[in-house]
C-alpha cells in the first residue's frame, strides 16, 4: 500500500502550485505565468509572516507572551477550518480523474490517504505561517525548558489535523445529504453558504471577545478557547505547565481523528462518488415549444446555470456579497442599542456615514464571478470559440452575470445600512453610486485578468476557482487594494474624506472604461 500511496501522492504533488509545469514547460508564457503565481504567493506569505511577527511581538511586549501559544493554535485552526472547507469536496470527491484512479490496482484507503495528505501539506504551510513566528517569539520571551521545544514542534505538525478533519467531515456530510436530492447543487450551495457564514461569524465572535477584554487578554483567550476549541487548551496546558499528559492527549486525539476519518471515508468513498457522479435521468422528454433568445441572452442564461450548478464557484465568488447582506441586515435590525450609543458618544458617526460607501465597496470587490468564468469553460471552450458571435458578447454575458449577483443584493443592503445609519441625501446617493462603480470595475477586471491568465486544464473546478488560479488571486487582490486604499486614506485624512472618495471613484470609473475597451479588442481562441 505504501508504495502505491507514494505514487498517488507524487502525481498530485506534480500539480501543486504548478511546479512541474514550471520545470518542464518550454512555453515562455507558461513559465512567466507560473513565475507570477509564485511571486504573488511568496508576497502573500511574506505579508502574513510580517503581520504575525508584528502582532506576536506587540503582545509579548505587553507582557502577554504566555497567551501566544493559545492564540497561535486558535489562528491556525480557524485558518485551516475556513480554507479546508472551501476545498473539501473539490479535492476529495467528484474529481475528474476518479475513474482512472479507481480503476488502478490500488486500495481505496491509499487513494483517500493520498488526497488527504495533499490537503494536509497545504494546511501545514498555512500552519507554519500562522505558528512559526509566534513560536519563535514565545521562545525568545519565555525561555521555556528544553522539552517545550518538542511540544512546539509537535504542535506545528499536529494543529492543522483536527480543524481539517472537522471541515472535511462537514463538506463530506453536505455532499452525502445533498446527493440524494435532485437539485443537489442548489442544496449543496445553500448548506455550504450556511456553513461558511457559521465559521466566519464564530471566528468574528471569538475576536470580538478578545478586543472587548483587551486589558486581560490571557483570561479572555482562555475562556474563549475553553468555550469554542478544547484541543487548544490541551496544548496550552502542556506548554505552560509542562504537562506531558495533555500533550499526549492532544497528539492522540489529532492522530486518531485523522485515522478514523480516513477509514470511514475510504469505506464510503465509492458510494459517495457514485452519488455525486450519478444523475437523475427521466428519459421521458416530449418536444414542446422552445423560447428563442438573442446570443447575448443565451450566453447570459448559460452563465447563470454554470454559476448555480457549481457549488465551489458560487461559494467562492459570491461569499463577499452574501456577507454584506448578512452584515447589513444585522446592522439594520439587530444592532445592540449599547453599540449605537457608544458610536454616538465616541463622535465617530460622521466618519462612519462618510466612509460607508467605501465599506460597501470592500464587500463588492470580494465578489467576482468573472475572474474564473473563462477558465471554467475548460474543455467546453470549443463551443464558445466556434459560436458565431463577437468575443465582446461572450465577455459582456460574463460581466452581466457578476452584476446580476452583486447589484440587487448591494441595493437591498444599502437600504438596510441607510435604515441603520442616519445619512444626508448626498451620503445616501453615494451609498448606492460608489459601490455600483466598484461592481462594474471588479466585473471588468475579472474578465480582463482571466483572459490574461486562463486556466483551462483543470481536473476539478476547485483548481479553476481557487488552487492558485492567478486570475482569481489577482482580481480579489486588485479589487481589495482599490477599495481599502481610499478607506485607509479617508481614515488618516478625515478632513478630505469626500474629496478622496470622489477622486478615487472617478479614477476607478476611468480604469473600468480603459480595461473594458481593452477586453473588447481581445479575440477568443482555444
Amino acid at each position, binding site marked *: 500500500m505504501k508504495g502505491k500511496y507514494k505514487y498517488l501522492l507524487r502525481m498530485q504533488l506534480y500539480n501543486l502550485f504548478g511546479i512541474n509545469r514550471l520545470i518542464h514547460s518550454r512555453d515562455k508564457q507558461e513559465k512567466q505565468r507560473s513565475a507570477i503565481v509564485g511571486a504573488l504567493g511568496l508576497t502573500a506569505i511574506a505579508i502574513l509572516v510580517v503581520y504575525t511577527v508584528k502582532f506576536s511581538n506587540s503582545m509579548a511586549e505587553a507582557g502577554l507572551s504566555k497567551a501566544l501559544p493559545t492564540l497561535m493554535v486558535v489562528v491556525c485552526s480557524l485558518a485551516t477550518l475556513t480554507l479546508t472547507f472551501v476545498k473539501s469536496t473539490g479535492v476529495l470527491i467528484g474529481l475528474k480523474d476518479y475513474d482512472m484512479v479507481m480503476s488502478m490496482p490500488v486500495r481505496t484507503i491509499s487513494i483517500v490517504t493520498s488526497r488527504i495528505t495533499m490537503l494536509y501539506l497545504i494546511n501545514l504551510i498555512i500552519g507554519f505561517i500562522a505558528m512559526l513566528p509566534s513560536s519563535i517569539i514565545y521562545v525568545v520571551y519565555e525561555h521555556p525548558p528544553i522539552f517545550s521545544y518538542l511540544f512546539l514542534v509537535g504542535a506545528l505538525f499536529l494543529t492543522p489535523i483536527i480543524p481539517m478533519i472537522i471541515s472535511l467531515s462537514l463538506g463530506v456530510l453536505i455532499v452525502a445529504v445533498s446527493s440524494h436530492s435532485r437539485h443537489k447543487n442548489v442544496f449543496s450551495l445553500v448548506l455550504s453558504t450556511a456553513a461558511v457564514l457559521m465559521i466566519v461569524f464564530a471566528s468574528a465572535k471569538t475576536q470580538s471577545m478578545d478586543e472587548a477584554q483587551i486589558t486581560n487578554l490571557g483570561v479572555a483567550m482562555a475562556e474563549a478557547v475553553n468555550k469554542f476549541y478544547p484541543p487548544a487548551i490541551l496544548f496550552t496546558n502542556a506548554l505552560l505547565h509542562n504537562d506531558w499528559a495533555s500533550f499526549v492527549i492532544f497528539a492522540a486525539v489529532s492522530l486518531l481523528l485523522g485515522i478514523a476519518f480516513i477509514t470511514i471515508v475510504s469505506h464510503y468513498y465509492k458510494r459517495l462518488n457514485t452519488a455525486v457522479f450519478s444523475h437523475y435521468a427521466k428519459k421521458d*422528454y416530449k418536444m414542446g415549444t422552445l423560447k428563442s433568445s438573442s446570443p447575448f441572452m443565451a450566453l447570459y442564461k448559460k452563465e447563470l446555470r454554470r454559476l448555480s450548478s457549481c457549488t465551489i464557484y458560487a461559494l467562492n465568488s459570491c461569499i463577499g456579497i452574501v456577507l454584506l447582506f448578512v452584515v447589513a441586515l444585522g446592522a439594520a435590525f439587530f444592532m445592540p442599542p449599547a453599540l449605537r450609543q457608544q458610536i454616538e458618544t465616541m463622535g465617530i458617526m460622521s466618519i462612519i456615514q462618510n466612509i460607508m460607501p467605501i465599506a460597501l465597496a470592500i464587500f463588492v470587490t470580494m465578489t467576482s464571478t468573472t475572474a474564473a468564468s473563462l477558465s471554467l469553460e475548460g474543455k467546453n471552450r470549443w463551443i464558445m470559440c466556434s459560436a458565431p458571435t463577437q468575443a465582446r458578447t461572450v465577455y459582456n454575458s460574463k460581466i452581466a452575470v457578476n452584476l446580476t449577483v452583486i447589484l440587487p443584493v448591494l441595493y437591498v443592503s444599502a437600504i438596510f445600512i441607510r435604515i441603520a445609519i442616519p445619512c444626508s441625501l448626498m451620503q445616501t446617493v453615494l451609498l448606492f453610486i460608489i459601490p455600483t462603480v466598484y461592481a462594474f470595475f471588479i466585473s471588468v477586471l475579472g474578465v480582463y485578468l482571466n483572459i490574461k491568465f486562463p486556466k483551462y486544464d483543470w481536473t476539478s473546478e476547485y483548481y479553476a476557482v481557487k488552487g492558485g488560479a492567478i486570475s482569481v488571486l489577482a482580481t480579489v487582490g486588485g479589487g481589495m487594494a482599490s477599495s481599502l486604499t481610499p478607506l485607509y486614506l479617508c481614515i488618516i485624512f478625515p478632513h478630505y474624506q469626500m474629496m478622496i472618495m470622489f477622486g478615487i471613484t472617478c479614477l476607478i470609473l476611468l480604469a473600468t472604461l480603459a480595461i473594458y475597451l481593452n477586453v473588447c479588442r481581445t479575440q477568443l481562441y482555444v
Partner: protein
Amino acid sequence: MDAVLEIRNYSKVYSGNKKAVDSLNLSVKAGEIHAFIGHNGSGKTTTIRAVVGIMDFDEGEILINGHSVKDEPVKCKSITAYIPDNPDLYDYVTGIQYLNYMCDMFSVPAEERVSRIQKYADVLNLTDSLGDLISSYSHGMKQKLALIGAFVHSPKLLVLDEPFVGLDPEASFHLKKIMRELCEAGTAIFFSTHVLEVAEKLCDKVTIINDGKLIESGTMEEIKGSHSLEDVFMEVVENERQV
C-alpha cells in the same frame, strides 16, 4: 461551382518553431464530401481548428464562402458547424437546453427549431433523453447531441473531426445518411477520419496530409485508382518517410 471552403498556403507554427502545418492548399465545393486523412499528429486537427476560427494562424488565408476566417470570423462561423474529436458539452444543462442554446447562438428562427431538433433527435434516437442533464449521457449520446447541435442550423460548411469515433453502428449509419442528405442540399462537408473504409465509400474527394505537408489531394478515383484507399495511404506515407 464556387468553393465553400478554400485554404490557401496555410501554415501554423507552434512554439519552438516547429511547423505543424506547412503551406497547405485545398478547397471543398458545395455538395462535396471531402475526407482529410493522415497519421496522428500529422496536422489534421490543427488545420480544422484554424478553419473553424478557434485557433489563430500565422501564414496563409482561409476563406469560407468567400469570407476570410481571420477578418470576418463571425460571418464565417455563422455558416459553419463544427464538432471536435471529443465533444465536451456543458454537463450542467439538459440536452434540449443545449440545443436551444445552439439555436439561439446561430439565430435559428423560433418556429423552425422544434421541427429541426425533432427530425434529427428522432433519427438518432435521442428525443426521450433531451430533458435530462448532459452529465447523465453516455459518450455516444453526447456525440449524437453534438451532431444535432451542428445540423440544426443548416450549415453551409460542416467540419467534423473524427465524427465516427464512439458512435454505435446504428448512429454511424444514420450519420452517413444525414451527411449525404446535407450534401445533396448543397452543404460542403470536410471531415478528418482514421476509418479509411468509410472515407472511401462516402467521399467525393480526399486529401492526405503527413507531417504537416499535403501529400495527395484529388477525387477519390484519382487518388486510389483500382486500389483500396488503405493501400494507397500506406504506400504514399511509406514513400514520404523514405524521402
